[in-house]
Every structure is written in C-alpha cells, then in structure tokens.
C-alpha cells in the first residue's frame, strides 16, 4: 500500500467524527444564513405568530402582538448570526476538542459498592416514617415509574427492541387484577402473580409473530398493539366498564390485615389487630414499602439475569444481530425472552398501580405514558439500571416541583429525546462494563 493512502486511512480511523455525513458547504455563507433565518421565520410565524380562535360559530384568526413577533424576529436574527459564524465555531471546536467531556466517578466498586447499596436501601426504608404523607405518596408514584422504566429497559436498552406499546402491558396487568377482583374476588396477593403471568403471556403471544420483523416495524406494531388494547378496554363495556373504568379496587393487605378504618367482612383491620389508633398515613407507608420491595426485587432479578447467558445474549444481539446468528444463537428466542420478561414487569407494576389508585380507566393507559417511560429509559442511558432510576426520579419530581413546568412537560420530553440522540445517544449515565476494543489505526 502506498504511504499516502496508509496515512489517510489512519487519520480516518482515529477520529470517527469525520466519517459522519459531510457538513454543508460554506461557499456562500451569506446566502445560507439568510435562508436559515427566513426558514426560522416561516416555521415560527406560521404556528406561533397567528392563532386560530373560535368565536361563536365561526373561526377567526388573531395576529399575535408585537411581543411574539419581536421574539420571532430576534430568533431569526440569532439564527442568521449563528449561521454566519458557524464555520469559525466548528473550526475552533475541532481544535480544542477533548477526548471525553464527562464521566460518572467510579465510586461503585467491590465492598464499597455493597455498603452504598445497603445505606441507600436503609435510607429508603426509614424515609416514610420521617416524611409527610404527600411526599411518601409521590415517592410511591416514582417507584412505579422506576419499575416500568426498569422493565422497558430490558426490552429497549438491553435487547435493543423498540417497544412503543409498553403501556399496553401495564394496562393488561392493571386490568387483570381489577377484573379478577371484581368478578372472582381475588385479593391483591393472589392476583399479583397472575397479573405478571398474564402480561408475560400477552408479551409472548404478541412477540412470537412480530419479533421476526426488523426493528422499526416492531416499533409500529407495538404502538398499534398498545392502541388496540386501549380501544378494546374502552369499548368492551360489558366486561371492563368502558370509559367509566373499574372503581373500588381494594388495597393490598398485610397477611389479611386491612389498612382501612373498617375491615371488610371476615378480615381484621391492622389497627384493631395491634390495638393502636387508626392512622391513614399507615396505609400510604405500607403502599410505599410494598412498591419499594417490588422495585428491589425487579432490580435484583434484572441484575442477576444480566449476568446469566440470557442477559449476555440480549446485549450481544443488540450489538450485532448477524454475528449472533452466526454463533448459533436463535435471535427470535432471545428477543422473545426479553420481550416477555420486560412485559411481565409492566404487569406487576400495573397490578400495583390498580391497587394503589383503587380506580382505573383506559384514560391512564394512553400513548403518552409509553412515551414518558421511553423518555425515562432514553435519558437514563439505554441499558443502565442506575441511569433509569435517576431518570425516573427526575421525570416524576420535576413536574411536582415546578407546576408551570407540567404544561411544557411533553414538549421538553420530545425535545430531550431528539437532543439526547443527537448529542449523547449513550444517555446521561451510560452503562459501564469491562471491554476491549481493537485499535483500528
């Protein structure tokens, strides 16, 4: 090989950023900057600059005031200037680029790690007794989302299958408990394993045919599945109560001790059994502890699975489908196991959700929920358990801390998903694992 060609090869190998599709040409910076500014103005002006209003029976259009248009013009100007100096900025960036910008400190290793985990679990166990009721309630909700995030993480993060209908499994779990209870009188503890099995069955039945498909088809089919479940629940009024949902779902009991003021027939209330005064906070704390235990079990199970051949196979399959097949693994079976296991966690979470709310309706299981859970997984760094936990906490706490944020929540989720994929597809807390890479240079 001639010397020159060798050098160029080496150069291309060491900086993968250069192989990304080419930058736009800067031959006419004024023109492209002007075009970008006009584009900004069209994009903003057509949606933000005018507003449809219904006045009586007719619809009219209101031209927004100078402040809106002022902002739009300012934005266009900013885009114009940015485009003009962009070549210089990129050149400067390329010169001052550092290999890695940010990484999680590696405090978690060996004995220290176990100690930290013990401390964290201890703190979480004491937390409800020191805190007020609404905080504990919020923490319970966060735990549900953590569980959903962990379950979806198995499917999306570990096995690399994009499931957009995850909320469908959540709904199946919730309705399994609600229906078993209202028709057959099953208690929470009897229904919980059945809910898990039921969703696993649904996952299996759905996954069996569709997992042979390529990734993006899978996304659409699961999206359709989630919608079908919701439409069925909404319209099968005789069984599910339709849009009215199912009410009066009993809370979980502790060895048949109820946490209500008055126990149902045949049961004893917790405070009567122990001869203490009735305290409604006890019920909230009990639910919190239950959710915590469920999350810990989920974490442990997934942690163990990851170190079993099946977990290794998930990740191998995500990284390279064809290599896996050539090594004699059965991709459909591996995908199916990830899909089924992921679904069953949603089933447990769903049954718990039904028990906690006491009322469920198809309203709770819209596509938005799926999108929120997916956003949790994406933000946490696909595949990382710790990342998912932190992301779930952030996603549920932020709307509570800033009420006005709630309005913009989905907007920001969408934006965040795009920006994360563009800038940091490995997530904020990427999965770390011992690995070796061949030096391509």
């Amino acid at each position: 090989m001639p010397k020159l060609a060798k050098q160029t090869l080496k150069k291309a190998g060491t900086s993968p950023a250069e192989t990304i599709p080419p930058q736009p040409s800067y031959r006419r910076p004024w023109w492209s900057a002007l075009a970008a500014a006009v584009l900004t103005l069209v994009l903003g002006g057509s949606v933000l600059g005018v507003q449809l209003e219904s006045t009586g029976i007719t619809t009219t259009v209101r031209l927004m005031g100078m402040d809106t248009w002022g902002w739009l013009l300012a934005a266009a100007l900013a885009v114009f200037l940015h485009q003009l100096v962009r070549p210089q900025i990129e050149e400067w960036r390329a010169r001052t680029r550092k290999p890695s910008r940010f990484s999680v400190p590696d405090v978690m290793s060996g004995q220290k790690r176990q100690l930290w985990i013990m401390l964290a679990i201890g703190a979480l166990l004491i937390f409800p007794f020191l805190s007020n009721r609404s905080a504990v309630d919020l923490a319970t909700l966060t735990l549900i989302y953590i569980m959903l995030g962990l379950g979806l993480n198995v499917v999306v993060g570990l096995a690399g299958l994009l499931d957009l209908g995850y909320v469908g499994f959540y709904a199946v779990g919730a309705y399994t408990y609600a229906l078993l209870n209202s028709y057959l009188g099953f208690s929470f503890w009897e229904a919980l394993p059945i809910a898990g099995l039921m969703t696993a069955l649904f996952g299996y039945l759905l996954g069996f045919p569709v997992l042979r498909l390529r990734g993006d088809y899978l996304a659409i089919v699961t999206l359709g599945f989630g919608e079908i479940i919701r439409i069925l629940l909404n319209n099968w009024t005789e069984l599910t109560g339709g849009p009215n949902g199912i009410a009066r779902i009993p809370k979980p009991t502790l060895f048949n001790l109820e946490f209500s003021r008055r126990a149902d027939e045949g049961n004893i209330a917790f405070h009567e059994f122990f001869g203490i005064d009735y305290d409604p906070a006890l019920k909230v704390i009990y639910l919190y502890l239950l959710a915590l235990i469920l999350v810990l079990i989920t974490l442990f199970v997934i942690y163990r699975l990851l170190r079993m051949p099946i977990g290794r196979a998930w990740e191998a399959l995500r990284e390279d489908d064809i290599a896996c097949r050539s090594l004699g693994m059965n991709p459909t079976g591996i995908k199916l196991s990830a899909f089924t296991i992921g679904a069953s966690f949603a089933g447990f979470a769903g049954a718990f959700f039904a028990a906690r709310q006491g009322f469920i309706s198809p309203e709770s299981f819209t596509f938005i929920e799926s999108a929120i859970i997916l956003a949790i997984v994406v933000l946490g760094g696909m595949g990382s358990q710790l990342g998912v936990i932190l992301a779930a906490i952030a996603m549920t706490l932020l709307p509570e801390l800033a009420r006005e944020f709630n309005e913009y929540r989905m907007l920001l989720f969408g934006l965040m998903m795009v920006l994360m994929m563009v800038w940091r597809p490995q997530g904020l807390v990427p999965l770390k694992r011992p690995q070796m890479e061949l030096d391509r240079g």
Partner: protein
Amino acid sequence: MEDILYFLQQVINGLTIGSTYALIAIGYTMVYGIIGMINFAHGEIYMIGTYATFIVIAALGMLGIANPFFLMAAALLVAVLVSCAYGFAVERVAYRPVRGSKRLIALISAIGMSIFLQNYMRLAQGSRDMAISSLIPGGWEFGLESFAVNLSYMQVIIFSVTLVCMLLLSSFISRSRLGRACRACSQDAGMARLLGINTDMIISMTFVIGAALAAVAGLLLGMYYGVVNPYIGFLAGLKAFTAAVLGGIGSIPGAMLGGLLLGVAEALTGGYLSTEYKDVVAFGLLILILLFRPSGILGKPEVEKI
C-alpha cells in the same frame, strides 16, 4: 338492490379517505426507500398542513373573500409552503445528525420529534377542536328512493386532486433529472454519491416532497371533515404508515394502492361492523401483513446484506 347501493356508498367513502391516506403514505415510503428509516414525525407534518389551511381560510374569510376555489388555491399554496419548511427543518434537526448511527437511535429521535411537534402545536394553538364551515357543500345523489348514494362535490375534488398529485409525482420520478437521481439514491446511496449526485440534497428533497403531499392531504381532509386539533397527526400517520406497508414500503405505486385498500377496508368495517373498531381493523391489518407478507403487495422481498 339497496344492499348494493349501501355497499357502493361505503366504497365511495372509503376511497375518499383512502386517497388521502395514499398521499400521506407516499411521504413514508419515499423516505424509507432512500434512507431506510421511518419518518415518525410525518403525521405531524400533515397536522401542521391542516392548521395552515384553516388559518388561511379563516383569515381570508375575515377579509370577506368567499370564492371557494380562490380560498382553496391560497390555502394550498400556504399549507404546502409551511409543511415543506417543516419537513425540511425536521430532517435537518432530527434525522441528518443521526443518519450514520444505529437504527434504534434514529427511530427514537424521530419519535421525539413527533412528540415535540404535537405539543408545540398544542401550546401554540390550544388543544381544542377548531372548525370551519364547508366551503363546497352539496353533491350528486343517485339510486333508489329508499336509499340514495351520495357523492359530494368535495369527494370528487379529493379524487381529482389526489389523481393529479399522483400523476405529477410519477412523471417527476420517472422522467426528470432529479427524479432519476432520487431513484439512484434509493438503489445505492453510496454509489450515487460517488457518481456526483448530491445525496444530502436528494434526501432533503424527498422529505420536502413528502411534506408537500402531506400538506395536500391535510388540506383535503381538513376541508372534508372541517375539524382540526393537534392530535390528528398521530392516528393519520399511523394509518398512512399501515397503507405504506400494505402496499409494500419503498414502492410508490404500492403506497397508492395500499392507501385505497386501507380506506375501503376501514369504511366497510365502519359500515357493517362498528365504527369503534375501525382503528382496530387498521392495526390488525398491519400486524397481519407484517406476519404473512412483510414486503407488502407490490414490494420486493428484502435481502439482508452483511
């Protein structure tokens, strides 16, 4: 006889909706044909086109202009322009930077874009339904006294506009220089680039053409139904995607055929079974095709290359 007329009526209604599905489906199929990814935000582009239509019609109505054809032409111009701008920008912001990376990453980015656009519109225009009155009311009726088949003028307009769009698109793809470049890119983008085709430009153009057709569909369906809200893009996008898969994704005639078939299937379900399960039929159909013939009716079976 009445049964036949009833059936005919459902087919007419189905073809009306189906032809707009076909218009949206072309956007999916063209993008898929060239860069092999699903443009999830395409349904939202259709929604934006519908809003642009409503804004233009309402604004001109306030100025006292009532000629329906002038209104339609003006709305068409603006809706296509705005949608194209959005299609172009979406590709630049959400798809181009992730084009080289894994499929899953591009897909999540696309879904994020879809959620973003939907909520952007909701915050800007409110989540309530907005209605406009029908610009071109009336139609023809024929059949028996007991049951008459109704073919409205609007339906005829939808058929003819769709037909014109399809003819324009096919001649553009098969005859023009850019169309040839487009086909070259879909066969082998790397080779096309080596031969001096500006593939980035061709990809942008694909998105813009798809967006323009989605805007036309938005205009037609918006005027047909007379209602718009920020959430219409989700379902319409999903249906159009089903149509694209049904016909064979990547194939433009397939998208047309798939759209019409899906529209008719839906109308027949609505007419004979129940309207609640109309959407279930679309999704069920999608799952069935993917199971038994993933390459669709007119598509070629895909060979996986290593």
